[in-house]
């Protein structure tokens, strides 16, 4: 079997695996919640000031998210340093 054939065999396995496998079940019951994570405890963000896990430098960064149980994000209230409160958001919060 030459290198190209071997490569296509692997591609066939990958495509079969994609067709056969389910989306991770545990990920289905969750949602990304922005604006609730503490500094250094965020997961990843797609926009703005940081690129990935644990890099947020401020508490309740509006661009940083954590996974939370589905349906709980927008009822999660955080108290900001100025004493005001704000709910979590399913999308990055505009400044």
């Amino acid at each position: 079997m030459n290198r190209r054939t071997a490569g296509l065999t692997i591609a066939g396995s990958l495509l079969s695996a994609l067709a056969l496998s389910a989306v991770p079940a545990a990920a289905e019951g969750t949602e990304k919640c922005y604006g609730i994570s503490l500094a250094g405890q965020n997961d990843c963000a797609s926009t703005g000031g940081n690129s990935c896990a644990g890099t947020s430098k401020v508490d309740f960064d509006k661009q940083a998210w954590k996974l939370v149980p589905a349906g709980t994000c927008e009822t999660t209230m955080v108290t900001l340093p100025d004493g005001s409160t704000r709910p979590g958001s399913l999308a990055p919060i505009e400044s």
Partner: protein
Amino acid sequence: MSPSPEQAAFPEAFAAALREPRSAIPARLAARPGVDPAVRFAIYRNNMAAGLGRVLADRFPVLRRLLGADFFAALTDAFIRQHPPAGPVLLEYGALFPNFVERFPPSQHLAYLADVARLEWLRHCALLAADAAPIDRAALAAQPPDVMARLRFTLHPSLAILRSPFPIVSIWRANIDPANPAVVPAGLPGENALLVRPGLVAEIHAVPASRADFVERLQAGVALGDATNLVGADLTAALAFLLSAGILTGFFPVSDDAARRSDPA
């Protein structure tokens, strides 16, 4: 004003007295009038030991079931005295516990206990690891077939593998539910545990050694085509497992290999 030698030695003496239940209270300790400082100090010392004991009981529930509450408490008392927390963050407490279990003379003949403790510690670490979204399946399927063997993947940050000569996954599963009686499944071969937390729950899978090797190669950044020899004919099943268990979280497109991965979000 710099502290006197006596003042400088006080925190050390205070910490040492906290660890030893029968030691004298630290010198120069005072309480409000009419109260014995030894009594107050004993309460503080007891609360610290009890709190740390509860942390370990919470973190190693299967080990506690296997040993029984009394034996486990004796074990954790000994551990807490020898290895008090190195920092203020209790979430990090217990990393040294599995090795301590391995060397604890009263249970040394039960060799599987230390690996059960290691599995429970890894499960705790998986719970604390960063979240990551599953791989973009549509983007992956859209890659040209002739470059797929050259793809490299990013794996979930919570991923961990523990190889054991003991059936640790079977033991863990049989004992994690307090509704079932504590049992140690007998006559089973060793197992390789793979832990990953795709959502909010840390999943523990038992995987063949070849599949564990395959996952570790991919995690090390080896291209798919250079790792497939490890699983042979099992490749499709192995890849389906990696996808459905949420282990794959991203890939590096071959065209801009050196650049960032396809979907950092």
